[in-house]
């Protein structure tokens, strides 16, 4: 049979597709998100310039914070931010993964539904409500029932000494509660993305529920759970209000996790409103700049990890 090859229609004959103005319009509107992100970094950089010029890289390592002497350094705040966030992750990670494992299991739909709603409500409670609860309930409780007994029984351990109601530990506890929903919701999605076949194979080989979970499911979801952990770390680094209310606001490197400390976000929250002096305000903005650059990097790494995992999972399944 002869194949009739049609001549390619010439440009003059073919109907010209009109330019998609709607596409242009929505592209411009959608670009607001990246534009705002870039603007935030640029404006903070510009506002922090006086401090950057004055202190250079020494700002990041100096431990002084003295508005009277006009001498500012970020190290205690950076230390406090990293320490509270890592401690909070250490507390929240086992619990978060356990919740994710329970939520990702098939069956028991009602129980799971209730747990899922509970975790989502945990994420919805405003940070200031966690703050007032931590200030009046959680911090006094952890002081009386965790900090004092532990430091009494282990008096020779320096980093567990000197209990105080408002402390790095209290801040980490409330942070752990606040990042738990992020951790468990994303881990659940990642665990669910593990191909069913892998689990069925393990069960067919005679593995028990725990052996399947621990040796098959969790290892294959490892990268995604790691991504969820980093994402939760990003949330913890930037959390302001609840931490400010219980950390004790002491601008020094704490000798013990039970001592008061400070975080980048808390220093800004407490001092920026009263920073009339130009260099003081610029130094506070530079703290904000450090915070936002760190969270940007952490978030991008985490998102790439989570995305790569779920895309792979989709290819396999």
């Amino acid at each position: 049979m002869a194949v009739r090859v049609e001549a390619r229609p010439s440009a003059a004959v073919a109907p010209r597709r009109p330019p998609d103005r709607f596409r242009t319009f929505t592209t411009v509107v959608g670009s607001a998100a990246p534009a705002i992100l870039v603007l935030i970094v640029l404006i903070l950089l510009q506002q922090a310039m006086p401090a950057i010029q004055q202190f250079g890289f020494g700002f990041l390592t100096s431990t002084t914070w003295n508005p009277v002497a006009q001498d500012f350094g970020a190290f205690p705040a950076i230390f406090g931010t990293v320490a509270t966030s890592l401690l909070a992750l250490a507390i929240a990670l086992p619990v978060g993964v356990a919740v994710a494992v329970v939520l990702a299991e098939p069956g028991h739909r009602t129980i799971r539904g209730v747990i899922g709603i509970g975790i989502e409500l945990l994420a919805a409670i405003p940070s200031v409500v966690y703050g007032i609860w931590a200030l009046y309930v959680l911090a006094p409780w952890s002081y009386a029932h965790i900090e004092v007994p532990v430091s009494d029984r282990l008096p020779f351990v320096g980093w567990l000494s000197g209990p105080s109601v408002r402390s790095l530990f209290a801040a980490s506890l409330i942070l752990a509660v606040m990042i738990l929903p992020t951790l468990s919701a994303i881990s659940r999605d990642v665990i669910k993305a593990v191909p069913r076949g892998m689990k069925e194979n393990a069960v067919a080989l005679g593995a028990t529920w725990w052996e399947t979970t621990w040796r098959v499911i969790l290892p294959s979801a490892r990268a995604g759970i790691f991504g969820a952990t980093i994402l939760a770390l990003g949330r913890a680094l930037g959390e302001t209000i609840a931490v400010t209310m219980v950390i004790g606001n002491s601008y020094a490197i704490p000798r013990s996790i039970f001592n008061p400390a400070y975080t980048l976000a808390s220093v800004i929250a407490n001092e920026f409103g009263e920073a009339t002096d130009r260099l003081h305000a610029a130094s506070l903005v530079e703290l904000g700049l450090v915070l936002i650059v760190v969270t940007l990097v952490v978030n991008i790494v985490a998102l790439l990890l989570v995305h790569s995992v779920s895309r792979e999972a989709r290819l396999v399944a």
Partner: protein
Amino acid sequence: MNRNRRRNFISRGWLLVMYALTVLALIPLGLVLWFTAARGLPPALNVDFFTNVARPVGVPGAGVEHAIVGTLMMVGIASLMAIPLGVLGGVYLAEYGIARWAGWVRLASDVLVGTPSIAIGLFVYAFAVAPLHHYSGFAGSIALAILMLPIVIRTTEGAVGLIPNGLRESGLALGLSRWRVSLQLVLPAAAPGVITGALLSVARASGETAPLLFTSLGNTFFSLDPTHPVQALPLTVYQYALTPYKSLQNQGWGAALVLVVIVLGINLISRWVLRRQIALAGQL
């Protein structure tokens, strides 16, 4: 045989541990809700609390009306800015999502969701407060809008993406232009999901304190003027909780209760709307 029994026993044990940890995770939720209700109800069970404004310590009949009004006003203005922009941005990601630029928009939105809200406060201070030399409710609204925008974008993308291509194709086959197909055909079909996203962003903005500290600042009197400092419920909770006065602390708990009721209420409503979306998408 004995070994298998031991393996099953271990498995059961770990299952129990996992459930125990899950219960442990939900304990803080229960405690937060319980304490907020127990300490917030006595001050909040009083009409004065909703119809009066702040009064000096010791003067009875103080209320948080100014904070409730301020929150409604600022979140309202922020919604007017963030929701239309966010919906259009979400439509862009859902309809033209394979473009390379769309990947960047998506990444930027996700990163913006995780950006520390205190940094957004500093940013808005720099361009909406410092040049004008005074704090204002508008500045607070801009900060809240920046927080809401990425949430609306991503939830709209999710909802519009659920709509099957058949609907778009039938619209195009009838000769409708792209914008009509997107805005008059696909978007209404995705409306419940879009509304869910908008509601969630409103809930998130209602509860934020940090971006308002240096933008709307707060006040102690009734005001409907967004060009001047405006009080908000989260600011009230924060300021009162840190005072040494018992009566103010109690009012702080009362404001926290009002805030929790608003935020959780919006969340439950949005959950109900979302269920309708899933049912609707199933029909299409």
